[in-house]
C-alpha cells in the first residue's frame, strides 16, 4: 500500500503542464480514431495515471478514462468516501465508484453511441477486467494502444527533472547513511524508511542482501511524488577486509553509469564492466542492465529490454551491476542516471 505523502503542488508541476500531458494523449487518440482511452492501474503500478493526473492508486485498482475530447474521469472500486482526498491531490474532477469495472465503464460510455475504446498497454491489463469492459460495451471496438503514455514518461520534463534532482539528493544522502559501517540490516532499512518518508517520499522499498563472504548491499527504491529513483550500495564501505571483488563492484558501477550515453546498449555496458570485475570467485556471473525510471514500478519486469536496445537521449534510467554467486546469493550496485546529449548526468551517486 502507498502510505507516503501525495500532494499536488502547482509550484512543482504547473497546471499548464498537466493540461498539456492530457492534451498530447488526446491528440494521439484523435489521430488514431480512438474515442476514449482506458488506462488500468493498481496499487503496484499506476504511473501512467499519475503522470496524467497525479492520482495515487494507494490501494486496490482503478481505471482512468481519457476521452479524445473532454476531461478525464477516474473509475474506481474504492469507496466514494475517498473522493474528496482524490480530488485534493489530483487534477481529476470527476470520480466514479462502483463494484466492478464493467458496470462503471458501461455507465460511463453506455449511453453514447458505440465507438472505439483504446486500452493503454492492453497486454498488461488483467484479462478478466478487459473482458468485463468488452462485455459491458457491446458494439464498441477495442484497440490495444501499447506504450502510448509510457513513451512520454521516458524523457522527464524540466519540472520532473527538478523533482528528480531533489528526490535523488535526498536518496543519495540517506543511502550513504544507511550504508555506513556497523549497522544491522534492519537498522539500515529503518533509517531509510524514517528519513525518506520523513522527507515526503511516497514509497520506499528497501532491502539488504548479504553474500556468503559477508558483503552486504543495501538497495533502496524510492518514489518521490510519482517519480521513481533507485540506488544500490555496498555497505560498510570503510572496511578493509572486504574481498577484492567488492571494491571492483563499486568501480564497475561508476564505469557502467559513465558509459550510459545516447546509443549505448546494455551489451555495451556489460562489455565496459566485465574487465573491471577480475577477482570474482569461480561460478560467479555478472549482469549489467539499465531500466527506464518509467518502468521502475515493476523493476522493468513487464517491459522488454533486449541487449541491443539503445539508450535514448534525455531518458532517465537506473544502471545496475549485479554479481551473482554460485550459491545463488548476490551483490549489486546501482545508480540513477540522466542520459544527457553529451554524456550521462548522475542523479544519484554524483559524489563518487
Amino acid at each position, binding site marked *: *500500500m*502507498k*502510505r*507516503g*505523502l*501525495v*500532494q499536488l503542488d502547482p509550484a512543482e508541476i504547473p497546471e499548464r503542464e498537466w493540461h498539456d500531458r492530457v492534451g498530447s494523449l488526446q491528440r494521439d487518440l484523435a489521430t488514431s480514431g480512438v474515442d476514449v482511452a482506458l488506462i488500468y492501474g*493498481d*496499487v*503496484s*503500478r499506476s504511473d501512467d495515471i499519475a503522470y496524467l493526473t497525479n492520482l*495515487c492508486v*494507494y*490501494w486496490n485498482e482503478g481505471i482512468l478514462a481519457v476521452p479524445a475530447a473532454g476531461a478525464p474521469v477516474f473509475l474506481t472500486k474504492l*469507496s466514494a*468516501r*475517498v473522493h*474528496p*482526498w482524490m480530488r*485534493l*491531490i489530483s487534477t481529476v474532477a470527476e470520480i466514479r465508484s462502483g463494484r466492478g469495472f464493467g458496470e462503471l465503464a458501461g455507465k460511463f460510455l453506455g449511453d453514447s453511441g458505440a465507438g472505439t475504446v483504446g486500452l493503454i498497454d*492492453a*497486454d*498488461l*491489463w*488483467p*484479462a*478478466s*477486467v*478487459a473482458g468485463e469492459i468488452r462485455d459491458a460495451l457491446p458494439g464498441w471496438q477495442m484497440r490495444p494502444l501499447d506504450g502510448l503514455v509510457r513513451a512520454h514518461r521516458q524523457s522527464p520534463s524540466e519540472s520532473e527533472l527538478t523533482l528528480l534532482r531533489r528526490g535523488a539528493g535526498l536518496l543519495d544522502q540517506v543511502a550513504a547513511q544507511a550504508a555506513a559501517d556497523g549497522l544491522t*540490516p*534492519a*537498522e539500515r*532499512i*529503518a*533509517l531509510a*524508511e*524514517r*528519513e*525518506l*518518508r*520523513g522527507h*515526503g517520499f511516497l514509497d*520506499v*522499498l*528497501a*532491502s*539488504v*542482501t*548479504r553474500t556468503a563472504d559477508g558483503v552486504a548491499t543495501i538497495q533502496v527504491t524510492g518514489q518521490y511524488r510519482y517519480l521513481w529513483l533507485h540506488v544500490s550500495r555496498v555497505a560498510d564501505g570503510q572496511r578493509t577486509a572486504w574481498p577484492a571483488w567488492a571494491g571492483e563492484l563499486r568501480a564497475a558501477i561508476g564505469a557502467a553509469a559513465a558509459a550510459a550515453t545516447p546509443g549505448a546498449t546494455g551489451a555495451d555496458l556489460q562489455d565496459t564492466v566485465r574487465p573491471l570485475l577480475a577477482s570474482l570467485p569461480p561460478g560467479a556471473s555478472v549482469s549489467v542492465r539499465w531500466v527506464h525510471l518509467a518502468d521502475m514500478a*515493476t*523493476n522493468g*519486469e*513487464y517491459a*522488454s529490454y533486449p541487449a541491443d536496445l539503445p539508450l535514448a537521449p534525455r531518458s532517465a534510467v537506473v544502471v545496475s551491476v549485479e554479481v*551473482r554467486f554460485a550459491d*545463488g*546469493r*548476490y551483490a549489486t550496485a546501482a545508480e540513477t542516471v540522466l542520459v544527457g546529449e553529451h554524456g550521462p548526468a548522475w542523479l544519484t551517486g554524483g559524489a563518487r
Partner: protein
Amino acid sequence: MTIVDAGAADGAAVAADSAENSLRLGRVRAAMDAAGLDALLAFAPLWRRENVRYFTDAPVAGTASFTLLTAAVSDGAAPGGVSAFSTRRSDLDAIARRGWTTDVHLISAHSPTALTTRLAEARPGRLGVAHYELLPQVLMNQISRALPKAEIVSATRLMDDVRLVKSEWEIGRMREVAVAVAAGWQAFVGALEPGLPEYAIVAAVEAAIKGLGAEDNFMLIASGGDEVRGMTAPTPRLLERGDMVRTELTPQLNGYWLQICRSATIGKASDAQRRSFDLFNEAVEAGLAAVRPGVTADEVARAQNDVFRARGFGEYCTSQYTRVRGHGHGLHVDETPIIEGNETELPENAVFIIHPNTYTPIAGYHVLGDPVRVTPNGAEILISTERKLFEGAI
C-alpha cells in the same frame, strides 16, 4: 516491502516446518479434489502475493510470480508437487533456501517458457488459477496456448477458503507480529505533537516496525476534529492541539499481517472524544462477545452495529459512512469482510479484526479495533496494546 536476506535458512527449522508444509498441501489438494481441479496455479502480482507465500513461505519480490501444484504427484514432478516461478532472479534463491520447494524457475512476463513447459507436461484437464482475476492478458494468453484443451477457471475463492482457518504454526507467526504492532502504535503516539505533518507520523511508525524486521505495512491515517469523515494515505496537514489522530496500522512480518485500530488525541481528550470512544469501545466489546466457532461474519457485524443503532447512530453504519465492521487477517491484510449480509462462517482458528470504524457527529471518524482468534471459548485478542483513547503530546 522489505526483505532482509540474513543468510541460509536453518536446516532444523526447515525440518520442523515440514509438517506445516504437508498440512497445507493436503488442504489444498482436498479442495482441488472437491472442485475437480487437476492442477492449481497461484498467481502473485506485486500486491497480492498471499497464495504464492502459502506454498513457499518465502518473501517473493518479483513483479509476477507463480506456484504450480498438481493434484497427483507423478514421477519426475517437483518434490511435493510444487514448482515456483518468478520474474525476479533473487526470488529463486529466496524460495529455494526456504526449502518448501526447490523446483524454482526464472521466467519473463513476455515469454514464461519454464512455466508453460511445466504446464504442458502436467496436461491438466481443468486448471484453477488463484488470482485469475488479476492475471495480465500477456500471461493468460501464453498459459492458454500451453493448454489448448484445458478448462481454466478461477481458484481465488478456493484459496481464500483454504487460508481462512489458521494452523497453530500460523497462529504462532501471527503472535510474533503483535510485537511489531505494539512497537508501531507506541511510535505513533510517541511522535504526536502539534505542528507535525501526518506523513512524518507514518515515517516514525515505519522506522519502528522495519527495525523489528517487518516486511510491509498497511496504514491509513486521518487527523483533525469532528469534520473528519474517513482515512486516507497521509497528507501534509499539520497536527493541532485538540485533534484526534486515527489510524489502522498493520505490520507484515514473516508473511503475516496483523492490524490494530486506535485513535489518539493531541493533548487532553475532550468530553466528546471520550463519549465517542465509549460508544466505539462498547461496539468492539459487543463484537468480541459474539465470537464463537461457527459464528457468521454477519453476526459479528450485526452485534457491533446494534450498539450504534441502540444509541441512535444506526445511519452511520451504512456505506455512506463506513465500509466494514472488520475483516480477516493472515497472509493477506484484507480477507473475509465482516459485514452484515456476509454469511461466511468463521470457524475455530479463523483470525480477523473487529473494528466498528465509522463517522459519527460525536467526534468525527473514530477508529478502534483488535484482531482476534476464534477459540472454543470465544475471542482471543492477539495484541497486547490497551484499548483506550490515547492522549499524546501531554
